[in-house]
């Protein structure tokens, strides 16, 4: 298996297994990724699974997950196309409104130039299959503007100067 999950400390292997829509709920142990739609339709069907993650697709309403959030080890938000920005709102809602604290992973069409924006919306893991993006991340090349003009969802940002809406990353003296 390829190590294509990028986090703060580098790449690791994706050990989650997608449960296809027509696949029965497994009885053997393992880490399973279930679509939001399927999970919400029958949450009790997954009661015996020890580790479960949710796959959120564009158009899904993440607020329906509110009563179940402590059951999830990971939530994956899918970007079917990088130009579809719904996942950014889903991420902020999960982090800021629902106070979800587990891993929040971007999957699908994940590209270098979107990763800084995704991080600010609360993503902390990225499934990266685009080769130039992988290469850039491996060399620590994240072309970011490290000053922000709006509060968002990253915990490690601090107010910057007099403006109530400006932020900078903690650790960068400005």
């Amino acid at each position, binding site marked *: 298996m390829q190590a294509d999950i990028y986090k703060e400390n580098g790449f690791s292997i994706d050990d989650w297994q997608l449960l296809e829509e027509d696949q029965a709920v497994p009885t053997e142990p393992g880490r399973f990724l279930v679509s939001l739609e399927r999970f919400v339709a029958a949450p009790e069907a997954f009661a015996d699974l020890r580790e479960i993650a949710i796959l959120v697709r*564009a158009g899904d309403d993440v607020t329906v997950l509110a009563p179940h959030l402590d059951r999830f080890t990971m939530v994956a938000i899918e970007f079917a196309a*990088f*130009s*579809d*920005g*719904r996942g*950014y*709102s889903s991420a*902020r809602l999960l982090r800021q*409104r629902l106070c979800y604290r587990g891993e929040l992973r971007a999957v699908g069409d994940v*590209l*270098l*130039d*979107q990763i*800084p*924006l*995704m991080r*600010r*919306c609360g993503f902390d893991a990225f499934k990266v299959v685009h080769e*130039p993006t992988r*290469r*850039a991340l491996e060399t620590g090349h994240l*072309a*970011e*503007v*490290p*000053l*922000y*003009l*709006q*509060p*968002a969802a990253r915990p490690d940002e601090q107010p*910057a*100067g*007099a*403006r*109530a*809406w*400006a932020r900078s990353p903690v650790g960068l003296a*400005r």
Partner: protein
Amino acid sequence: MYRYDEFDESFVSSRVAQFRDQVRRRLSGDLSEDQFKPLRLMNGVYLQLHAYMLRVAIPYGTLNARQMRKLAEVARTYDRGYGHFTTRQNIQFNWPRLQDVPDILAELAEVEMHAIQTSGNCIRNVTADHFAGAAADEVADPRPYAEILRQWSSLHPEFSFLPRKFKIAVTGAAHDRAAVQVHDIGLQLVRDEAGSIGFTVFVGGGLGRTPMVARKVRDFLPETDLLAYTEAILRVYNRYGRRDNKYKARVKILMHETGLDTLRADIEREFEEVRSGVLDLPKAEVDRITAYFAPPPFAQEEAGDADAFAQALDSDPALAVFAERNLAPHKAPGYASLTISLKPIGEAPGDASAEQMELVADLAETFGHDEIRVSHEQNLVLPHVRRADVPEIFRRLRGAGLAEANAGLITDIIACPGMDYCALATARSIPVAQRISERFAASGRQQEIGDLKVKISGCINACGHHHVGHIGILGVEKKGEEYYQITLGGSGDENTAIGQIVGRGFSYDGIVDAVETVVDTYLGLRQSPQEDFLAAYRRVGDAPFKEALYGTA
């Protein structure tokens, strides 16, 4: 006007470095054109018919002499010696090379300018009344709020991949010169009974293929809630706006399909979650930003100034006509806002040469407290000039071909670039504007007609705003030929209306005659010269015009 601090300087120069890196990765092949496209658009770089086009932001249309000179220098160095001022108060350069764009942006950053979000499916340059801070009828200067919105929306992590572009306009006066009701969000500054500043909020206006007038979602939004409420609107739009069809993706379609009551309830519900949090605008910060826009120290009007000006007008009929058309009332006694028309007869609307830009910069420094505005009608404005200086300003403008006394007249035409530049256009617009301009230029004729806004688009995307022209002209292509449809009765002010199609289209050769027929019909039926075209049209409807154009009512 607003001045960058260290934070803003670092922000913009980091953005230049980021874009330089994106261009490098595009040229090396790491980024495909599909992947690069939204990135370049978000930095104002389009691929046009013949070349790349760079659209530089002029936030709320305000700039100073130094910035104008830099635009002239860019025009001379990287373009063909001219630039094109746009209906969104920006400037476009039509011939830069992609590999030069990062250098151009670095030069612009030296004078506190950028091209951030002048295109793409994101929050675009925030526009405002071009007479802001000067107009006699203003409740408050809209620019501090436009600046706060500009900052907050810059590289917004959540709202950079919206369903479609998103435009915000702010007016500070009840008489709306910013066309706020044809924007995705329109804000009108108002005071409540206690005298506190707030906003009437409109959502879901827009032109394009499906023109719609915005709906009012709030009578009074307190100043402190500006960002929280805007974020609520944007989040609802980002989550629920259509993405299956780019022509149905603007918030106006969401408004239309969801309905005002439901969408307003969605926005208010989201706002309840966001309000009273980190997005509250502290009064002290609003005051600090507002201080940047403090009016310049106006000179006292001296005894005799008014008489001398009146005498100058008496002795120079051309100056009198210019003053009549191109001066707007100012809040300070003895002052006026002066429109520099970029619609010389027979020229492309909105174009200015590097030399003309430099002249305007000189005039702004000498006579205008170092302020220049770009109007959405594609003209330039010196917002603060002493009336006593107008004769000299007029003399110098005349020497540069910039003294056309046609502000608001039939030759003050808005036109999109059309098929001469644009890859989307299906018909020419600039040559049509030029021919109409020539037809009505005869001395006295356009003055006799009076206020009349003609707006021309070269395709249904409506960049020439034809839907809100008193006379709108839409160029379409039919079996390889250009045809021009006429709409009548449109308006982009506080009584915004979408023009109605009057009947079948006219050929490229016939359109100017048709416009003349419409104008002659108006002249024949108006009750007095004080009844302008729009008022007359609203009184009589389209029947007399149909009759005159087609012989059948």
